[in-house]
């Protein structure tokens, strides 16, 4: 199976971009935690596999108040950002387990398509609340756009990095996930910017994480208002009925934490 696959092992970000090209027939392997089981069990037979483990995308940089996270950064290293964006660090430590957090990458988590039984991509939540900018390459070359837009059009793109401005405060609240499931049933992230704006986002409510725009703009109960931002579905982890009751609670918890930080 694997012998028919052309394996590309770029040694720099530029080489990775070049070898990815338009992304046609290319399967990207970051840490391998999502793609490798697909190969092992024969569900995926790539024409070309682009292995990013030596591509030098595992960077984490601060420039003034801007934080830039390379797509190849292992998830566990986001714990280093506790002082910059508590919600992101907390969410990262909530992903899977010790070993998988060291192996899985930020890019893989953000770009993962929904699994067969539940949505993936826990990190999308805090990164959406941080209004992160996604820099990617692919057909038409390099582009930078808000993560919210990137998530809607990520097919055929190779994520290079994500950057965000340090917020005044951030908060994260999640339902505990059942053992052996690496993804959260439902999680809410919130950010208060230095100019006093509040941004909210949720994961576990759709195919990928979503900004809770209506909740952000609501004056009354923002927890209930958040229900207008999502289309809840039943999956292997929880029913829509349950999520409908839990989402407002998590939104209120996040807002309470943000208020405490004021």
């Amino acid at each position, binding site marked *: 199976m694997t012998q028919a696959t052309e*394996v590309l*092992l770029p040694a720099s970000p530029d080489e990775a971009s070049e070898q990815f090209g338009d992304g046609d027939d290319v399967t990207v392997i970051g*840490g*391998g935690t999502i793609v490798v089981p697909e190969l092992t*069990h024969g569900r995926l037979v790539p024409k070309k596999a682009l*292995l990013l483990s030596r591509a030098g995308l595992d960077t984490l940089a601060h420039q003034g108040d801007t934080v830039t996270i390379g797509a190849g950064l292992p998830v566990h290293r986001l714990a280093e950002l506790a002082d910059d964006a508590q919600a992101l660090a907390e969410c990262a430590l909530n992903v899977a387990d*010790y*070993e998988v957090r060291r*192996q899985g990458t930020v890019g893989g988590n953000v770009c993962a398509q929904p699994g067969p039984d539940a949505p993936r991509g826990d990190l999308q939540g805090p990164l959406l609340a941080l209004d992160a900018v996604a820099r990617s390459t692919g057909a038409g070359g390099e582009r930078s756009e808000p993560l919210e837009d990137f998530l809607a059009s990520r097919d055929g793109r190779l994520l290079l990095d994500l950057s965000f401005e340090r917020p005044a405060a951030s908060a994260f609240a999640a339902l505990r996930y059942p053992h052996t499931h*690496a993804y959260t049933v439902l999680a809410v992230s919130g950010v208060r910017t230095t100019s006093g704006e509040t941004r909210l986002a949720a994961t576990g409510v759709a195919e990928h994480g979503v900004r809770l725009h209506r909740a952000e703009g609501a004056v009354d109960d923002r927890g209930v208002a958040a229900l207008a931002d999502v289309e809840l579905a039943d999956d292997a982890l929880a029913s829509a009925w349950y999520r409908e009751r839990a989402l407002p609670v998590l939104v209120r918890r996040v807002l309470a934490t943000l208020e405490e930080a004021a």
Partner: protein
Amino acid sequence: MKLTVNGISHELTSPPLATLLDVLREELGITSPKAGCEQGGCGSCTVLVDGEPQRACLTPLAAVDGSEVTTVEGLGSPEELSAVQQAFTHHYAAQCGFCTSGMMIAAEAYVARGGTDDHEAIQEALGGHVCRCTGYVKIIDAVAAVARGDSFDLTTTAPSAGMTNLGGVS
């Protein structure tokens, strides 16, 4: 591609996308890493890659080319068990043995990074490892004992010579 496994270097012929688990078990005949779920969720394939625990089933060979790998066979020998292996023996922390290799590798790394005997911290460190016999109490006791620096006299605690063959299920 090359790997140094338990101190011995190997030139490998497996394809670049072969998993480290397949390379260890099929090409090198090292059977302590187990093929459990083969999707990263059970922990039974865990080995040390350059000193850090990693799921061998999730790791393409090309991603670890040139690395140093340690399996349970490299922790100690039947004559001279490592502290973790002694603790697992003393505390009867193996039932069917299938998860034991992964548990011991995770425990080895936990102790090496200065982990304490705090049960919650141990649970967090072993959180990616499933014991199908649900023998967690004794496993956690064993890890706590190593973290505390307990010493074990296995001549009085091991019920049979077979008990020292931890991780021997192939």
